[in-house]
């Protein structure tokens, strides 16, 4: 049967598409919604559309009655919102300039599970498997490249999320659902100098972890290292000042490409990082739930001297973060001494 009209009904009971014409998950066009299902009537004519069944309002042209599924690519915000209604989710915001390694970090974590269990966690599912696959393509032999690369996130992509559902082996396979943000670096570069643009980074306020990436390659370059670290400091300041992060936030400073920090300048590079982090820590930690430093090499080309890529520790830290930290903290307690501050930080971490 060719070019007959078919009607689709949404199988999601929460969706009012039939009445409002708007997909609750925000899929545009409507046909891309994974919950749409053909009603089973192979031939539908205009008379049918005008009778009591008129509420079945989405018409499409197709040859046979078909069932449609989610597309497998990175999720839009509305899909994450929908997911949040069904499952407990940890939102991880990955913040960093262009080429700081945001997508590479996310894809490298995904690729670990292609080889087996990782960091005490096992793969339980993902709604974005094909989204991961598209991004990792240029790191694969099949791409024809000889040096691994990651597909750049375009400004046109807007805000997207990668989904990973993992099972914690140490906790009787407790399910942990990560939604990891993916934005073009240009968004963050603009936000750093423009509070109005910063306020558009609304996902950061909803995040359980905010990871600020610092390009290790630039730290290894004495000409660029001050600029790159001050940019991160300014980013953190603007997130705090615009209340996108606060006392309930877990903030991580992640030095990427740590494999490029070795060599003869290794000690100097590490000393520079320590000084940078100590300064940022003393300046901002009292305004945050916690502030931690990580060093990673998500895709080290020369990893002979690398004993650890830093990813197991990072993923563990995302897994053990407690939700709604702020609600459990007694804000009436005003730390006065250094000890009080340390005590408060310990309480926050334990909670």
């Amino acid at each position, binding site marked *: 049967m060719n070019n007959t009209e078919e009607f689709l009904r949404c199988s999601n009971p929460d969706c009012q598409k039939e009445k409002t014409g708007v997909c609750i998950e925000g899929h545009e066009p409507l046909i891309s919604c994974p919950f749409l299902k053909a009603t089973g009537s192979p031939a539908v004519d205009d008379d049918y559309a005008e009778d009591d069944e008129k509420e079945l309002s989405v018409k499409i042209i197709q040859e046979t009655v078909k069932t449609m599924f989610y597309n497998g690519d990175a999720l839009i915000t509305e899909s994450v919102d929908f997911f949040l209604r069904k499952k407990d989710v940890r939102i991880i915001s990955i913040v960093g300039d262009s080429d700081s390694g945001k997508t590479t970090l996310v894809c490298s974590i995904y690729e670990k599970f292609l080889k087996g269990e990782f960091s005490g966690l096992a793969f339980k599912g993902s709604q974005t*498997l094909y989204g991961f*696959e598209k991004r990792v393509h240029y790191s694969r032999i099949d791409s024809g490249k000889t040096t691994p690369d990651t597909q750049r996130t375009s400004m046109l992509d807007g805000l997207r999320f990668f989904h990973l559902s993992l099972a914690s082996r140490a906790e009787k396979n407790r399910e942990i659902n990560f939604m990891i943000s993916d934005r073009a670096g240009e968004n963050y570069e603009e936000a750093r100098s423009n509070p109005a643009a910063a306020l558009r980074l609304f996902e950061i306020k909803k995040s359980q972890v905010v990871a600020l990436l610092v390009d290790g390659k630039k730290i290894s370059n004495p000409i660029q290292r001050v600029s790159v670290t001050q940019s991160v400091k300014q980013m953190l300041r603007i997130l705090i000042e615009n209340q996108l992060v606060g006392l309930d936030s877990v903030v991580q400073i992640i030095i990427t490409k740590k494999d490029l920090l070795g060599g003869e300048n290794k000690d100097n590079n590490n000393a520079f990082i320590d000084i940078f982090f100590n300064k940022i820590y003393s300046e901002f930690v009292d305004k945050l739930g916690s502030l931690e430093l990580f060093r990673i090499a998500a895709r080290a080309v020369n990893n002979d001297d690398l004993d650890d890529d830093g990813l197991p520790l990072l993923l563990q830290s995302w897994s053990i973060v407690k939700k709604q930290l702020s609600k459990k903290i007694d804000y009436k307690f005003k730390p006065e001494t250094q000890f009080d501050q340390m005590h408060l930080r310990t309480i926050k971490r334990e909670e």
Partner: protein
Amino acid sequence: MNVLLHSMLGLPSSGKTTFLAALWHVLNAKEIECNFSLDKIEGDVRYLDAITEAWRTFQKVPRTSMQMEEKISLRVKNNLTKELVTLEFPDLSGETFERLLLTRLIETKKFDTLSSSDGLLLFITADKVDDGLSILDVPAEFRGDSTDGVIPEKDWDAECVPQQVKIVELLQLIRSRQLGNPLSKIAIIISAWDVITGAGPNIQPIQWLAREFPLVCQYLDTNRECFDYQVFGISAQGGEIKSELSRDRLAEKMEASTRIICAYDGKINHDITCPVFWLMSRD
């Protein structure tokens, strides 16, 4: 009479039709002791006869094309309980599943059959190519130079997705529409198992799956509330049929059914009915 629907799931060339051909021969020929036996020929079995003829004469069993998709129906008797059961096997082509992954669409009729199955036979071939290899998996000295152009650069398409990711996505897609269904019973058949048994030390099918398809193994293991599964190593052909030497050796067997290899639960026998019988069991 009880009717059990067992859908066959797998990518192209994963051994679905060859399995059916060998199963039909074993049930017809009654050369070996099996868990169940053919009670009566029901309906048109020309398709089964055609594919089985190819199997018997050591020819490559023709793949099922999307135009040739058939629903096989067998009336069998459980040799233990003497219970009569009709087994139905919709033989969907691997291309149907490839298209599902690509277009995210499947004919509702086919999908309803899949999702309402009493059990799934998931086929994964042991005779696989290594896919999904990262550039970093290759030692630096063998990575070549970007200018040597040995492999032309290629943009991403759905063909680039590694098999293990495709299989997990297929299971996820089916499960995504089975909300509320308690448990899917899946017999995972590692086809061309002779490739593994002939290659060296003894390895169990479940161990092989964990080594070669770790994502599939993790997914099934962490979703045990959704999947009840067992892994079988099956060689329906019994060995390499392209090689004259190997083919002649297989042909020397007095009973053709004995060329079949079935590795399951630490044992190896010739009973290709094992995975289906496990799906039929109610435990």
